[in-house]
């Protein structure tokens, strides 16, 4: 007998169909993963189970929690169920907690809201127990802490504590680790798994990450565009995928590209003993200002034609290093040279060097001015040239760049909002290619994309390596992507490069303990290609 059973659920918001005929079930103590790309309706399925749907939503079908049909309950009954029978954990721990209340008050609130008779002190004792249970012991994390005093992973633990304080029968986790670093992610996933097993809780796990899915779910439900396309026990489903979409999804997640071989070439970018400090606010009024060393004595070289990877967790200094290489920020010590010329001369960036470098950013939505057309957007780097092409030459350059990234010359007259995320990233690459730079920096360039789109962009990258002889620095937190598109890799921790070497060797046989912990923490897709 299942704990939660969603039967033929259809859902529309202001007449727009979001879910069609979704059926799935979760038994007590079972971990069920719902996976799919953006727009698949997986998050709304979770919110439907909570009955926390946006205004204008119409539902058909049944959502049975035990013997109760949640779609038929009044708001008062639902409030009694939420937090008590069903708990929920959200994606963004940084904003999921009320910033002006202590963590103790927020955890205790779950207890007090469902049991008016419990005293404040008793609720706080239970809150403290729950916090200890999720790994926030009282000696280090007293109830009086405020959310802003905790890290992202610690805040997610508080959210989990709020959700499980009353030992609900069902826990819904909506992308609970997407915003977290890989080592933190592993800890949170372990915690969720442990809690589900210990309390006999059903766990509905919404995630886009198939490696996470394969790693922890008992059963998997794959969704696409509001429909369930395939469902089954994890081991069985991984071996016998029936639906082409499921196969494509798994294939794209583990997508590998082969880069063309390049012969050894002279050095292009040389970074020597670079350090970058940030000033910290003074702790007391008269003490000298403290410093935070974001990049600490870093040296590395990129050879012409080489594809170098840079991995590390958030806050390790990779963004600062990227900005320093681009000459956007001055460094306190050390030198950065491209082809022997410094990227920063005196107090100003060296424009002669700058025109040999371009960058592709993470966010396909934020990296373009919404008010300009594509032709103006991709030609922005021409500003760096002393004699930018005009007229027919300019048009030819635009056409060539757009064609190289798989778009058409006609796209030049469109605005950026007319393109999808993947197409925007292609335009970003076109913008980087248009002045034929000698070095391109990819800053988390595929991290925001769905797996199927990501696979296409990686293919494009491999193809461009052949046609354009690209040299690039690929910065990412995603080890599996770095593994396939780079020749050599740097591992960065707390501002220092702790390990460097050929990508394959480094990942197969890591030397530094930090590299090892990164690789161990990253969930991996099981080998399934053999069974296809």
């Amino acid at each position, binding site marked *: 007998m299942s704990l939660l059973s969603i039967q033929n659920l259809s859902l529309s918001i202001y007449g727009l169909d979001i879910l069609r005929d979704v059926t799935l079930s979760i038994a007590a103590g079972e971990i069920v993963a719902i996976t799919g790309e953006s727009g698949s309706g997986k998050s709304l399925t979770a919110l439907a189970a909570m009955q*926390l749907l946006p205004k204008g939503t119409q539902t058909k079908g049944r959502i049975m929690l035990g013997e109760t049909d949640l779609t038929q309950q009044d708001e008062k009954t639902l409030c009694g169920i939420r937090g008590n029978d069903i*708990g929920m954990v959200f994606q963004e721990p940084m904003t*999921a907690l009320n910033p002006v*209340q202590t963590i103790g008050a927020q955890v205790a*609130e779950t207890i007090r809201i469902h049991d008016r008779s419990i005293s404040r002190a008793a609720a706080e004792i239970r809150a403290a127990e729950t916090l200890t249970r999720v790994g926030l012991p009282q000696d280090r994390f007293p109830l009086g802490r*405020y959310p802003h005093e905790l890290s992202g992973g610690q805040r997610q633990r508080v*959210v989990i504590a709020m959700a499980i304080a009353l030992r609900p029968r069902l826990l819904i986790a909506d992308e609970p680790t997407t915003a977290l670093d890989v080592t933190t992610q592993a800890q949170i996933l372990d915690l969720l798994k442990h809690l589900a097993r210990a309390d006999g809780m059903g766990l509905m796990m919404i995630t886009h990450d198939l490696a996470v899915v394969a790693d922890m779910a008992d059963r998997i439900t794959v969704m696409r565009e509001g429909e369930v396309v395939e469902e089954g026990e994890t081991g069985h489903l991984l071996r016998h995928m029936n639906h082409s979409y499921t196969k494509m999804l798994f294939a794209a997640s583990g997508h590998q590209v082969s880069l063309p071989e390049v012969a050894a070439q002279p050095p292009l970018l040389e970074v020597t003993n670079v350090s970058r400090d940030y000033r910290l606010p003074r702790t007391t*009024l008269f003490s000298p200002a403290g410093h935070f060393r974001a990049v600490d004595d870093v040296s590395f070289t990129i050879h012409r034609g080489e594809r170098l990877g840079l991995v590390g967790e958030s806050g390790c200094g990779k963004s600062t290093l990227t900005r320093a290489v681009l000459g956007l920020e001055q460094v306190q010590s050390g030198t950065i040279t491209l082809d022997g010329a410094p990227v920063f001369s005196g107090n100003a960036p060296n424009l002669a060097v700058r025109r040999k470098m371009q960058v592709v950013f993470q966010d396909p939505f934020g990296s373009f001015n919404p008010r300009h057309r594509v032709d103006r957007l991709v030609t922005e780097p021409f500003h760096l040239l002393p004699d930018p092409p005009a007229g027919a030459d300019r048009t030819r350059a635009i056409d060539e760049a757009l064609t190289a990234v798989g778009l058409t010359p006609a796209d030049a007259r469109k605005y950026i909002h007319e393109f999808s995320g993947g197409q925007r990233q292609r335009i970003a690459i076109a913008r980087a290619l248009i002045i034929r730079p000698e070095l391109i920096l990819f800053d988390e360039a595929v991290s925001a994309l769905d797996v199927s789109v990501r696979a296409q962009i990686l293919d494009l990258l491999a193809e461009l390596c052949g046609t354009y002889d690209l040299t690039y620095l690929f910065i990412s937190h995603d080890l599996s992507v770095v593994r396939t598109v780079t020749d050599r890799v740097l591992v960065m921790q707390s501002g220092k490069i702790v390990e460097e070497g050929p990508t394959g060797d480094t990942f197969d046989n890591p030397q530094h303990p930090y590299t090892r912990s990164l690789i161990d923490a990253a969930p991996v897709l099981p080998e399934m290609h053999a069974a296809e």
Partner: protein
Amino acid sequence: MVRYTFKRLLSLLLSLAVASLVIFAVIEVAPGDPASFMLGMNAQPETLAALRTELGLDTSKVARYLAWVGGMLTGDFGTSYTYRTPVIGMVADRLWVSLPLALYALALSTAVAFPAGIFAASRRGQAGDIGVMGATQLGVAIPNFWFAMMLVLIFAINLRWFAAGGFVGWDKGFWAGMHALTLPAIALALPQAAILARVMRSSLLDVLGEDFMRTARAKGLTERQALWRHGLRNALIPVLTIIGLQFSFLLAGSIIIEQVFYLPGLGRLVFQSISARDLIVVESVVMLLVFSVIVVNFLVDLAYAAVDPRLRSRS
């Protein structure tokens, strides 16, 4: 918290110093010699010189600025050119009308605006919300001095509930004083209440869209409980800024409203002094107004820290 307060205090003192410099400099460029203005056309040169010495007009600008600021710090605002009495006494009398009026209006506007804003936000898009928002549109558009005239017409001239103008003085008792200030305070509060209600509503609506409100609902709180327990305190942060700004508008507005009700406040003092070219009084009143605005904004900064723990612990 101590550090935060200290930093704010430092910025308060700096603002006051610069403001006093600006006011002094502006008055300094005023054409005409106050001494000859006071004594009239036919003054003897010796008397004029004596008066100039008495007023300190023959010393350097720096010395006069320092004397002015030093005087203010010790409660000596100088002597009125026209009335030949200490400015401090004149200002203090008037302040006892203007300050209670501004505070009364602030209390009224907050008392009306908070419930109205919360009501509108909790009924977003419904008839109640549209009604409140329509009323605030009108409230913002009505000039407060015109509204004051209408209040006089209805409640003083026709209904005779209140006096049409003048001030009985606080020696007639607290309630008599408050009664006399009621119509002016309502007129003064109207546009501010409308603005504050709009800010309260939009701030609450912003907060309602925050992730932590969804978390609260997932815990089992009703929409209303989530609004009161988690929404309100977070929504208060931008509202406090507006209250701080409003105080300066209320003080300024009271200068105008006093004209409608013939109230013996700072506003009337300033207009009399301007027409008499009694610049030292103008200078002192303006400094006092600016001083109170700066101090109120300092208090608002402290209130921020009380509401928002992130400010308190920022080290």
